[in-house]
């Protein structure tokens, strides 16, 4: 049974801005799901919807099932108990997500003492030290304030923080953005290791396909608040059925691959503003293979075989 299941989730922000428009995804324990897409496609909105952290003015449709229980139907008390203990988030932008006037040790110990009230102060401190060492930081850094750490160290603190209450689901929202390549590799290795060792379910959100390709079992590509293609990581990028995933994959050239030798592939134009989407397939104004029917009606996700789904009229054609 899947640990997290999004059923036709939609989120509309105040002012009739649909950020997420009917997304269905699921993650099982021990599985890594990658979510890819440009900024503004609704990735972070999904993160916040899982723990019900959206602003009050946002309207949510569909359901978020965490371990079979609908998050948006929970009482506040139940919700607070589930937050961080069952599912935690590695937020992007560690500098602003950490409280500048508290030591990182106290910030990591806070959810432990909150969710396991029987824990003594000392036991919590010990656990903080272990968590820091787990992410490759010496335990004594617990006494430091966020500004005393480097960007990569702060990001690792965010991961230690996410693991504080031994959650079963971790959602990592751009955990490696702003890290240099070496640290990025370490962080990814750490996360995949935890998935294997602890049987975590991990949702890895990133715009960097090279990150997703090496770490994830399955990948969902999002565009304009919808999943446009979903399937095993290896095939989605090498043999994409939706032109958007193809363009996204082409934007990250691979060294040694002759296909990337000449034209550095990019995608003209910008993603549409969620409050003003084009008619039909929202991608058609930027699509290199669009034809007249693309602007008529929106395309639903269709099974295209081998455990893959794609939302494109041309998905059936081989690329």
């Amino acid at each position: 049974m899947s640990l997290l299941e999004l059923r036709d989730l939609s989120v509309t922000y105040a002012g009739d801005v649909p950020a997420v428009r009917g997304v269905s995804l699921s993650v099982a324990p021990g599985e890594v799901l990658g979510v890819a897409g440009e900024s503004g496609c609704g990735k972070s909105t999904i993160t916040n919807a899982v723990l019900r952290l959206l602003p009050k003015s946002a309207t949510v449709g569909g359901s978020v099932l965490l371990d079979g229980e609908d998050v948006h139907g929970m009482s506040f008390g139940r919700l607070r108990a589930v937050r961080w203990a069952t599912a935690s988030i590695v937020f992007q932008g560690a500098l602003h997500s950490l409280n500048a006037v508290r030591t990182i040790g106290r910030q990591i110990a806070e959810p432990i003492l909150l969710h396991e009230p029987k824990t003594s102060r000392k036991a919590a401190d010990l656990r903080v030290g272990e968590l820091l060492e787990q992410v490759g930081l010496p335990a004594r850094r617990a006494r430091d304030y966020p500004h005393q750490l480097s960007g990569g160290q702060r990001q690792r603190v965010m991961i230690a923080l996410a693991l504080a209450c031994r959650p079963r689901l971790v959602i990592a929202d751009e955990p490696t953005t702003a890290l240099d390549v070496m640290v990025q590799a370490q962080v990814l290795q750490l996360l995949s290791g935890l998935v294997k060792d602890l049987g975590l379910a991990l949702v890895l959100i990133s715009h960097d396909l090279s990150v997703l390709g090496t770490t994830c079992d399955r990948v969902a590509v999002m565009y304009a608040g919808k999943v446009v293609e979903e399937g095993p990581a290896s095939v989605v990028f090498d043999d994409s059925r939706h032109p958007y995933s193809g363009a996204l994959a082409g934007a990250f050239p691979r060294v040694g691959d002759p296909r990337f030798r000449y034209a550095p592939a990019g995608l003209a134009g910008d993603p549409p503003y969620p409050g003003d989407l084009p008619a039909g397939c929202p991608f058609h104004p930027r699509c290199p293979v669009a034809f007249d029917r693309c602007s008529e009606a929106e395309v639903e996700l269709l099974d295209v075989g081998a455990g893959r789904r794609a939302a494109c009229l041309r998905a059936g054609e081989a690329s």
Partner: protein
Amino acid sequence: MRGYVLKKVGWSIGTLLFVVVFNFFLFRLLPGDPIGLYTRGRNMSPDQLIRLRQQLNRPIGEQFITYLSNPFASTINSTRFNRPVWEIIGERVWPTVLLVGTAVLVAALAGVWLGIRSGWRRGSRFDRVTTGTTNTLYAMPEFWVGMMLIMWLPFFPSGGINSVGVTGFLPTVVDTAWHLVLPVTALAIVYLAEYTSIMRASLVDELRQDYLTLARAKGLREDLVRRRHAVPNALLPTMTLIFLNLGFVIGGAITVEYVFSWPGLGLLTAEALRGPDIPLLQAVFLLFSLGVIVFTLLADLLYAVLDPRVSTQ
């Protein structure tokens, strides 16, 4: 941290030196004849006046050096009271510290509380009522508020610090507290808006910060999110303002002390100005400046204690 403290202390000493020098020349520029004021109402012959004036006609450079050797010398007499100026100030400083200190404390505590409540629920009824009321009160001159309070609340004493005939320690304390009520209220309700609005504004700035989303994601209750995370961050600018205001405490209540005949430095300044009693004014000004400098220094040091980012830079 040590470097930071030394730097701040150095700046304070530099400012003090500047004030000491400026203070000397400022009062040399004031019009008025000190001997004329000193001998006012007394029957003096022109010869006697000339002899007195001869004591004061040393060159300005020599006067400056005498003054610089000890600006806080208590040997200079007030022309109005004919007593050493620092002796008079020593008597008058405590009632002012008591009055304005209490008022700032009351205003700051109430203002911070109101600011937190209205900022956390921005746009609520409570917020609108609080902001409207405190701003209206802020727009009123404090001496006028004082006079209104005397009219509306006639059962409180309208002036002075003690009633005649009260003896013993405890009765004196109670009597002084009773006399404090109106002047403290007048000052506090006027100051209130300052603390309310700065606390509200700094809390509102924090509301959208990512670390509050993280605190909620951890499963904290809203009041813990506010108390543990939002308020400590929002308190930083407010604490600075409170300490800067404490610097103005000793000089800040001239009109209220005047309305309530409160025997403090404010009333003393008003009396000294009427002369003008130049030695006394000069000493009072020096003390006011010293107060601002010392409390600005304390505000800087406190900020370093409260905000770990300052001291380690």
